[in-house]
């Protein structure tokens, strides 16, 4: 059946048709929908794991046990899963194992722009790179065949424009796979030095075999269009190249970006006058061409930074793209903001008011860094807030302990915060850690996690008691506050900063966008009472603006959280008495 399908949905469909039995992932834009879509198929066991390392090890275990398995993650998630990756590569698989990694050139929703192809090379794992939804489906199925034929996990690598673009696919039927019996095989599966030394040459032989496969695989193909110009490309760059050149250049379109086909590249180069490699981010294919002695152009023409587009490639190739219409006007930027009624707002307002130094983490609450709250000063990776506040306080002692706070979300805490918290408890820094518990993984679009008590399908699951967990680690001071209550939040924050031992504050209130959260009627501003003091404006709530020099509440946005009311000294903000 023909359908218009998101790249991520098409990958899920391909995995399903190939008979995937177990899928475990951690959400991360732009990879999340693959696992959400798999969860809709009842034939497949699927789950959200606490982090990507766990997810990859779950998929490894399922593959060993004899079922085709899958784990998916964004590019930075692969950093977390890198430890199992490099050694699973040595062990190989029983039933096929597919790893999705989704890069984010242009950083639409990420903290860096790393190029995951380097992981394929470094870990010696083959990588397929689809260029539209139809290939997403096809490559997902092919990946399992390669995995089982060559005894290796296989990467599928996407980017935002593949993951989050819809194009037409033809779906097929699922093929059920019998469970491949697990066989005890210590030399293959136990990677202690003696066994691993024997495995490494096998892995190198596998890469040579895979390169031979890449030479003849139809997913690497030449589209001849004259001999003047040859372009080597893959993924979304292939689509931009086709948009610019149509049939007017010869193209080597790579569906497998590791290992690369040496002979095919040399043959292609010999048929054209000059060769240009067009690839986003790092010169990965270009450097390979240089290594095998094929003269190519690449990054001297095209940027290392940001995603490409058809106009960008046209300009780099000396063509003149169409001009648009523009007006001479200073258009204010519209960055993302915390939603109206976001429970994080009350907390960050309080942190800002107390002039705290805030070491932050990854999630919606990273938006606490933007004006007018400006209440987050550091943000690096999942879990870093807790580990780094410990280092910060160990370095400065009392100078920082009374005013420095780590802020981490519930899902991020389960992902990578617990080990940092163990370090605070063990090595005893006088640190104050705020866990913002909005009862969901928010930024990626509402996924369940071990603190929500529900599984990926929304059914009841195990529920970890956050307070008990912190206490079990040795924290005597574990406080819970409602961030909608500014006075209470302020009081508890001051007490815990003043305390002479480490403490955890759980700032708990469900995300205002959750369907089960009931909203109050919107607040109204009484213009006769409003003194235009703009106290309410310090919250940075998108529902509040100044109209005719009086506070104005947008009633289509306001959810009646009442936080602004608590800041009005003139009782001008009315409603929800």
């Amino acid at each position: 059946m023909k359908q218009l399908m998101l790249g991520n949905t098409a990958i899920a469909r391909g995995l399903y048709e190939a008979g995937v039995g177990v899928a475990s992932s951690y959400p991360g834009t732009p990879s999340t929908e693959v696992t959400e879509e798999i969860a809709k198929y009842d034939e497949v066991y699927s789950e959200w794991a606490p982090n990507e390392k766990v997810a990859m090890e779950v998929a490894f275990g399922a593959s060993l046990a004899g079922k085709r398995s899958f784990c998916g993650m964004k590019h930075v998630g692969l950093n977390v899963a890198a430890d199992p990756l490099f050694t699973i590569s040595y062990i190989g698989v029983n039933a096929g194992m597919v790893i999705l990694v989704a890069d984010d050139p242009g950083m639409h929703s990420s903290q860096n722009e790393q190029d995951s192809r380097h992981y394929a090379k470094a870990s010696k794992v083959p990588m397929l790179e689809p260029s539209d939804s139809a290939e997403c489906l096809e490559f997902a199925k092919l990946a399992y065949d390669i995995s089982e034929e060559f005894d290796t996990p296989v990467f599928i690598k996407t980017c935002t424009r593949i993951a989050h673009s819809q194009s037409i696919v033809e779906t097929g039927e699922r093929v059920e796979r019998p469970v491949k019996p697990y066989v005890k095989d210590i030399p293959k599966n136990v990677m202690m030095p003696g066994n691993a030394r024997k495995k490494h040459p096998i892995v190198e032989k596998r890469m040579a075999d895979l390169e031979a496969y890449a030479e003849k695989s139809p997913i690497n193909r030449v589209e001849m269009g004259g001999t003047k110009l040859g372009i080597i490309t893959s993924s979304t760059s292939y689509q931009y190249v086709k948009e610019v050149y149509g049939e007017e250049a010869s193209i080597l379109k790579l569906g497998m970006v590791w290992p690369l086909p040496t002979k095919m590249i040399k043959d292609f180069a010999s048929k054209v006058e000059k060769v240009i490699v067009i690839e986003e981010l790092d010169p990965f294919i270009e450097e390979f061409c240089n290594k095998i002695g094929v003269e190519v152009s690449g990054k001297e023409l095209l940027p290392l930074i940001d995603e490409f587009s058809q106009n960008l490639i046209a300009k780099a190739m000396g063509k003149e793209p169409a001009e648009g219409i523009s007006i001479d006007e200073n258009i204010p930027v519209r960055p993302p903001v915390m939603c109206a009624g976001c429970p994080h707002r009350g907390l960050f307002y309080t942190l800002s008011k107390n002039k705290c130094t805030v070491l932050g983490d990854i999630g919606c609450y990273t938006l606490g860094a933007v004006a007018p709250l400006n209440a987050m000063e550091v943000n690096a990776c999942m879990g870093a807030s807790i580990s780094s506040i410990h280092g910060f306080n160990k370095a400065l002692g009392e100078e920082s302990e009374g005013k420095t706070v780590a802020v981490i979300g519930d899902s991020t805490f389960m992902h990578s915060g617990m080990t940092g918290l163990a370090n605070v408890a063990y090595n005893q820094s006088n640190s104050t850690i705020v866990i913002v518990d909005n009862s969901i993984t928010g930024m990626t679009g509402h996924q369940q996690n071990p603190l929500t008590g529900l599984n990926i399908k929304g059914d009841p699951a195990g529920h970890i008691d956050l307070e008990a967990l912190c206490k079990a680690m040795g924290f005597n001071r574990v406080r819970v506050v409602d961030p909608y209550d500014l006075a209470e939040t302020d009081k508890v924050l001051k007490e815990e900063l003043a305390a002479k031992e480490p403490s955890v504050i759980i700032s708990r209130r469900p995300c205002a966008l959750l369907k089960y959260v009931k909203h109050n009627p919107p607040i109204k501003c009484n213009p006769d009472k409003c003194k235009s003091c703009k106290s309410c404006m310090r919250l940075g709530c998108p529902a509040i603006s100044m109209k005719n020099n009086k506070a104005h509440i947008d009633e289509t946005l306001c959810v009646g959280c009442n936080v602004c009311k608590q800041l009005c000294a003139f009782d001008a903000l009315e409603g929800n008495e």
Partner: protein
Amino acid sequence: MTKNIMIVGVGGQGSLLASKLLGRLLMNQGNDVKVSEVHGMSQRGGSVVTYVRYGEKVYSPIIDKGQADFIISFEKLEAARWLTYLKKGGKIIVNTQEIDPMPVIIGAAEYPTDLVNKMKNAGADVDAIDALSLANEAGSSKAVNIVLMGRLSKYFDASEEAWMEALEACVPPKFLELNKKAFMLGRNA
């Protein structure tokens, strides 16, 4: 020849449903179609853009500057921001609703005035419409997206039945009547 439609607005205004509807209609008409969306962080009240491309064979999933045959803007400031993507001779449909961005809310910038006329003076073919009022008339302020799709349908070679068929495929049954009403209000405005 590939045709290009951009849907721009503020995260949370329902552009994903609009592009779903449009993609469905265009595929039903036998076109090759690509739709590129924004998920994740940018959705949180930020400026969002969706690209819809169709024709015999579509390659790139995105639309570049000077290429859009239509821009449908769910908000006035966003129309001005993305205008440079409009092809010369293209049409921009603008919901006249104003949503203040954070720099305006905190007083660091002002919401520009007279944008519709400025766009017209720059040579753009502007169709301005108060879609929020029409959405409220249909029964929900959230139906702005479908009102604007109704407006777009005026300029489109597709029957009312074809649009309704696509709408039925994309909207949950309990919201269908409301959305049909919103669509017709936009189409006939």
